[in-house]
Structure formats: C-alpha cells, structure tokens
C-alpha cells in the first residue's frame, strides 16, 4: 500500500514536470463581455476587438467562444446600425461580416460561463457553445465588464466572485482541460479577480489594481458613447503589430499600457506560471497552433516536442486519475 502511494507521488511529480515543460497542441479563446446597456458600448467594442485580433492571428471561430451580453450593433440608439467601432476614426468595423457570437444577450450568465469553463454543459449543447479543450490546450480568457473588489458583475443582475473564478479554473486543471491559461481582464479593480487563483500554469493580467478604476479611452462624439477602454486600446495597439510569424514575447505584452497612458496600474500575476513570460512567444496564446502545421524555422523544437509526445503516449491511459472516482466508476460500468 505504502509502496503504491510512494509510486503515485513520484509519478505525479514527474507528470507535473513533464507537463510544464511540454508545449501546447492547440489554442482556445474565451472572450466575454458581461455588461449590457447602451452606455456600456465600450465593453462590447473591447471584446469584439480582441476577437478580431485573435482571429487574425489564427485561432479559428470553432475555437473561440464569444460571449456578448448585449446587441450594440442593432441597438436603436446606434446611429450606424449594424456596426460596432473601436475607434473614433471608424476605420475598423469590429462587428464585421464573420463574427460568430456563441452566447449572446441573456445567455451570458455566471452559470453558463462556469459551465462552459468546466465543461459541465447539458447534453445536446451545440459544439459552438462548448470549450472542447484538452490537456494540450492553451486557453486565453478575456473578460470585460464592471467589476469591484472581488467580483465581476454579469448582466446588471448577478456577479461572479474571484473565489468562484479560481475554483472554476482549478476544476479545469483537475479535468485536464488546459495546458496553460492566459487570463486577461479589463474591469475596475481587475487585479482582485485573479488574486484567489491557485491552479498552476496561469498567467494573469488585469487592467487595474485593487482600489483603482479602469478608465475608458475616448469618446466617439458621433455615436455619443465612450468607445473603448484604455487597457484594451493599448493592448490592441500592440497586437495590431503582431503577425502569426512574429517573435514578440508575452513579457513585452505584459508591459503594454504603462501608468502614464493607462492611468490605472496594470497588474500582473506570474507566480503560477512556470515559464518566464519573456521567453513565451505571444502567439502561444493569441495565435493558434494546429497539429498539422509544422514550422520549418523551429524544426528542432518541434522534434523535441514530438519526442516528448511519444514518451507521453505510454502514460496515456492513466491521465484520467484526477477525475472524480464516482464518475470514473460510472464510465467503467457503462
């Protein structure tokens, strides 16, 4: 018995280490706007801008879960029906032709969001509404809305607390639903949302520290609303210069929007993240790696990776040991 325990212990250490060294196999993005109403136009613009960027950098629509709490484009107050802009110059309509909104309006609830992350969706949920990530997925989670110390408001009627958020991510980890997570949040007191995280391999960035407000960037006076938030604006400015082949690192991305332009202090949490962000290419989260694509200029790395993967094959049957025993029992039975 004791021997068995020791064996498992050693085994788990080796697994964790091998995971942390391992690179990811696919990319997912969960982009959420939690607030409705016309005067929160900027939140919709925020999330649609990020959506546009990640899509441009290669994550396909099938791997982006876009949650938007209100339909700004068709709001009767919108002087430009059917469009959403993220800049007063209005050169990019972020609500373009191929936007796939997966959860919209009143579907954007805390329950749906947590179910989506943890994969506890009712049977029969369409694939577009599921986060079908696995242990090789790098997941980008982007949240925007109205936050407070330790919570994020959903739809003006309910809220998710930082503890609930942290527990949801832990459950994802235990269910091996991710390899690494980049958690990005643009709300007031954003840092309070990631303070409770305790699961490994999460890199988190928030637009403001606890006690600070995140501010909007500028007004589009023809629409008459604040059109985008500061942090997202500067993050986008950075992302616009990135292309799928670029070698910009996450370290550079984390330095985006210094206090002089952001007014709020951008908060970063690296302690759960095992790699040095400076060595992590930004495309690890914002771009997409598909198993079929082999990049020639990084051939050495891919070779190493494939070797490791083949080593992993041997352990594969045991990867479900984290799953709840009852669930396991049932599956065996059936």
């Amino acid at each position, binding site marked *: 018995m004791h021997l068995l325990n020791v064996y498992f212990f050693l085994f788990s250490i080796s697994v964790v280490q091998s995971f942390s060294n391992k690179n990811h196999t696919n990319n997912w993005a969960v982009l959420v706007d939690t607030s409705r*109403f*016309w005067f929160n136009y900027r939140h919709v613009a925020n999330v649609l801008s990020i959506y546009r960027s990640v899509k441009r950098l290669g994550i396909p629509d099938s791997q982006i879960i876009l949650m938007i709490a209100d339909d700004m484009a068709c709001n*009767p*107050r919108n*002087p430009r029906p059917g469009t959403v802009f993220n800049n007063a110059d209005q050169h990019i309509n972020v609500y373009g032709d191929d936007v796939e909104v997966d959860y919209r309006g009143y579907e954007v609830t805390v329950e749906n969001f947590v179910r989506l992350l943890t994969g506890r969706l009712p049977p029969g949920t369409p694939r577009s509404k599921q986060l079908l990530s696995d242990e090789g997925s790098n997941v980008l989670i982007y949240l925007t809305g109205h936050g407070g110390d330790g919570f994020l408001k959903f739809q003006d009627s309910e809220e998710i607390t930082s503890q609930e958020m942290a527990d949801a991510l832990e459950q994802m980890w235990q269910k091996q639903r991710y390899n690494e997570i980049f958690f990005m949040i643009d709300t007031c007191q954003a840092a309070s949302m990631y303070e409770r995280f305790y699961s490994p391999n999460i890199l988190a960035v928030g637009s403001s520290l606890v006690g600070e407000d995140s501010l909007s960037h500028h007004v589009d*006076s023809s*629409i*008459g*609303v604040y059109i985008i938030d500061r942090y997202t604006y500067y993050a986008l400015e950075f992302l616009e210069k990135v292309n799928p082949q670029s070698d910009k690192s996450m370290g550079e991305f984390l330095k985006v929007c210094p206090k002089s332009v952001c007014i709020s202090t951008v908060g970063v949490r690296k302690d759960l993240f095992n790699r040095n962000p400076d060595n992590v290419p930004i495309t690890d989260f914002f771009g997409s790696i598909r198993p079929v694509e082999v990049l020639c200029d990084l051939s050495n790395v891919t070779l190493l990776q494939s070797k490791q993967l083949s080593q992993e094959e041997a352990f594969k049957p045991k990867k479900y040991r984290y799953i709840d025993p009852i669930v396991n029992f049932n599956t065996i039975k059936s």
Partner: protein
Amino acid sequence: MGLLTDPTTGQGKFIKILLKYYSYACMLLYIGGVIWFLALAYPTMNANTYFSENALLPGLVKSQFREDREAARYHEELLDEMNKYHDSIPYSWLLAKFNQIGLDTYTHNFTLTSPFNRKDKFSGKNVYGILRAPRGSSSEALVLSTPFRPSTSAHPPTAPSVAIMLAFAKFANREKYWAKDIIFLITEHEQVGVQAWLEAYYGVSCGSENILDHGDLRGRGGAIQAAINLELHSERIGQMDIKIEGLNGQLPNLDLFNLASKMCTKEGVYQTFKNKGPFYSRKPSKEWLNYFRNMLSMMGTQATGIPNGNHGLFHRFGIQALTLEGFEQSRAKGSNKIWFVGTGRIIEGIFRSLNNLLERFHQSFFFYLLPSSDRYISISIYIPSVCLMIGTMFIKACARWFKLQETSCKEMSTETHSPPVRIDKIITTFLVTHFFGVLVSNIPQFMSRYITSLSVYETNVKVFYPLLACLVQLLFIPLFIRMRHCRKSMELLNILAMLELGTVLICISMNNFSLGFFCAIISVPAALLVNPSSCRICSYFQRFLWFLVHPLIILTVAVMINTYFLFPEERMKEIVIRGWDATQQSVIFSIVDSMVYGNWLYGVVTNIFIPNWLCFWIVSFCVFKEDEIDTEKTEDITDKDIKKTN
C-alpha cells in the same frame, strides 16, 4: 430583555429630567433647528452636483443641429400668423408644419368650466405631433412642450420656442437613432392646457369633478419618461433660467436638472437658477449669503405649491420635467448670446441624453434644495432642521402628559377631586373643530353651486367674504366651551393639539419640505408658548400671539411684504390696499388650483391647520384659578387630619 424589564426604573429618572428641563430642551432644539437651517447654505453642508445616472452620457455627442435658418423662418411665419389670429392658437398653421415635417399630428380639445360660475366655459386647443422611434418599440416617450401665448397675452412671448421646437422636430425626424417617441406639444391657456392634455393622456381626472373636461386624445406615444418645457422669449438668448418647482412642491430628479445645466454650460449660455448663475467668492460670508438667498428663493416658490412653469404638472404623473426659460438680457456682464443654433443644440444634447436612458430616472435625488445651480443639499442633510423643530412638539406633549399623570397621582394619594376630566368632551371638542374645518373648506363649492343668485357679484365677494366671515365667527368658539374652566381638560386638549400639529408638520415636510419648514418655524414657537395658564396677562399675551399665527393673518402679512418689495415706491396706504387685494386673489387662486389641478394647499390649511389653530385658540382661552387646587389640597389634608384624630 431591556424592553421587558420594569420600564419605570430607567424612565423614572428620565421623566424627572424631562419634566424639569423640557422647556429649555424645546427652546434649544428649536434654536438648533434654525441654526441647522442657516448652516445649510454654508459650503461644507452642501455638495457639488454630480451625475449619478451613468446611462445619460451627458454631452458626449457632437451637436449636429444646423436648422437655425428654418427656425428663423418658422419664427417669422408664426409672427405673421399670430397677427392674423389675435387671441387664439394658429392651429391650422401648426398642423400644416407638423405634417410637413412628417410627424403624426393631432389636436386636442378641452373645456374648462369656471369653478365659481358654472355658466362660464372656456375652451382651448392643444396641438401635438409624435415622432415615432424609427427602430425602437415605441414603449417610451419624451415630451418637448411649449406654451403658446397669443400676442395679447400678459406673459412674455414664447413664439421663438415654438419656432425652435419646429426646427428641432425637423432635425430630429431625419435622425435614425431615437429609441423613444418624441412628443412635440404646443399648449394653449398656459397650465390648464398642459393639465388637460396630461389628464387626457392618462385618462384620469385630478381636480374636482366637472371642472376640467379633459377631452380625449386620438394619438398616444409610449410611457412618458421626461419632459422639457421651453419658454424662450427671444431669438437671441443671453440667459437661460432653469425652473424646477412643481405642483405641491414636487421636484424633478436632480440628474435632469444637472443635465440641462450642463448642456447650457456646454453651449456657452449664461445659465441660471432663480436668476442667479454659479457663484464663487473668496469671502465665506458673502458666499453664504448668496447661497442662502438663492435657497430661500427656491423654498419660497416650492412652499406655495404652485408650479412656476408648465413642467410642474408633469411631476404628479411620475414624469421628470423642467422648464428652460430664455431671456435676451443677461444679468452677467459680458456673457455671450446664443442664437437658434445654440438653443437647438441645447435641446438636441438634452434629448440625446434622455434617449440614452434605459429605465426611469431613479438614481439621483428627488428631495433636495439648491443653493446654487451647481450645489445641492440632500434630504438627509436638510431634514434634521425641520425634525428638530417638530421634535419640540412631541417633547413638550410628552412632558405635559407625564406632568398631568404626576398631578393625578398626587391627587389620588391626597384623595382630592378636582372637576373630573371628561375625555369624551375633549374628543368632541377636537372633532367639532375639525368638522368646522371641513365646513370652511367646502364653503367655496357651496357658494358657487347653490347660491346662484349671487352670480352677479364678483368672485371675491362671492367666495372670499363668506370665507372671511366664517373664520371670524370661528374665533368666538372658545366662549361656548364650558370645560375651559377645567385645567386638566385644557391640558389634554393642548397635548392633543400639539401631537396633531407635530404629525401634520412631519407629513407636510415629507411632501413639501419648504412648506413644512415655513409652517414649523412660524407655528412651533407660538405653540410652545400656548399653555393653559391662570395668569391673566400671560393668557392675553398668548391669545394675541396665537392670533398672529392664524393662517389668514400669516398669508396677509406675507403678501403685504411681497407687495412692499414689488412696489417700493408707493405709499403705505396704497400698499395696504394692494396687499389686501392680492391676499383675496391668492386665496381665490389657491381654491381654483385645488379644484382644477388638485393642489392640496387649500385643503390642508382649511381641513387641518385651521381646526388645529382653533384647538390652541381654545386652550389659550383657558380660565381657572390657580389657588383652586391648593385650597382643596389644604382642605383635604385638614380633613384627613381630623379623620386621624378621630
């Protein structure tokens, strides 16, 4: 378990202290209330106004209104039309213009029967056009209204506001971002028109029956959320005054006031509240004085309960509304004047912000005082001042009550029997005074309805003099009350009256703080001084003092002072005559207001204040001999002694 322990133990001491010092406490509280009120105008007690409704997004949008030429043309045409019809609304022209612009256009007929002469009927016609929200669900609406004043009207002209309204309608109809219907309303006969239109819109009747026949509307928009009333007296506006005081002292949401004020500032017009702009001074005393004057001026208007513009009638229906009154002449030196472009942009800005609203105004304050257009005092800050004053009524009543009990305890122990307290008689007296109050309040209706032979006389003869006669007769009530010889009964009546006064003042302050405050500051000290007393001089002094706070006397004095300030150059005699006429007029107007609009000032004064005043009046006529009790006491003691010796 504090409640369940013997209440006498702790309270005994408390009551002793109360009995000993209650008169000082009352005095202190009253003075405290007055000081608190004076301090309200001090900048640390009030705060800068701010927007608490995020959805308004005030002033973010770039103004696009450019229809100033149209406005000028409409203005010219309207002036021509007005020359054709001297004293009626040129509705065919207005209908044609609204139709031309492309609105759903309707007219609305209403009839007002004169409250004092059923044969006199006035009819009027409102014109309104509805701009349907192009992409919205038409479930909500905004109103832009303006009173139409024919060239013969005594009030300053409003033709420019009709012109700018038409121009704005033309502009707005082109835009596609409206989420709410906009109703453009042009009313006739000042406030009667708006009242009739609103009653017809909601299908209710607010005043007495058969006075205002509100007619019917053929077209309606959604639920009205806000209304802006325009009274522009000139094409060029040098000063924009914002008026907010409504019927029965109701105020619109402070956010709406802030919005209007911000838009005016944005367009660069000198924006005022109560004819005073934002004021800054390094001298605290000067600043205080300025704020205080402005606050008093607002409270004066609010206390009358008469709306100072057409906006005031919307409030009752839960619609936030205010009036923008534009003057050509500005009080500020060197301020610039805006033309139709500017006023149009102010309206555009306000309406686009209102269009952004997602729910009713609910965020900011509904109960506030404004010492300046950019400062406010919230209810939690100002209500203590009146509460302190009203509190004295309850404290004194409480102290008197315990004193009464104490004396009756003493009497029980000494087994004396002063004349028995007849509670039923006290209550009867109390009810009878209120019955008289109800009678007084019904006199005007009675006179106008049943005594038709008087219809040849003027209204003041028909209504005011009978009322005055009744009030004078009521002064003699105390002489018919026999129990004024019983000290205890009088004490009880006094306590009852004080409790009533306190409760009524609280209720009024909740509805209309200014009225409640003014009533409290006048009646409370007098009521504190009225006691059943045996001293003849004191009692005469009490009667004199209490006579001075009779509602009618107060009204007369207030009107006289007002007349004096309005016509300072006239001689005393003329001022008195004028003032007396004005008093009669104001009583008659308050009766008319109560019958047409449902203003409750007249009803409250006659049904509650006059009976309450009478109760105190009876108390001040209390006649008894101080030594009465003492002699009885000594007699009894001797009796007892005799018994003991036996």
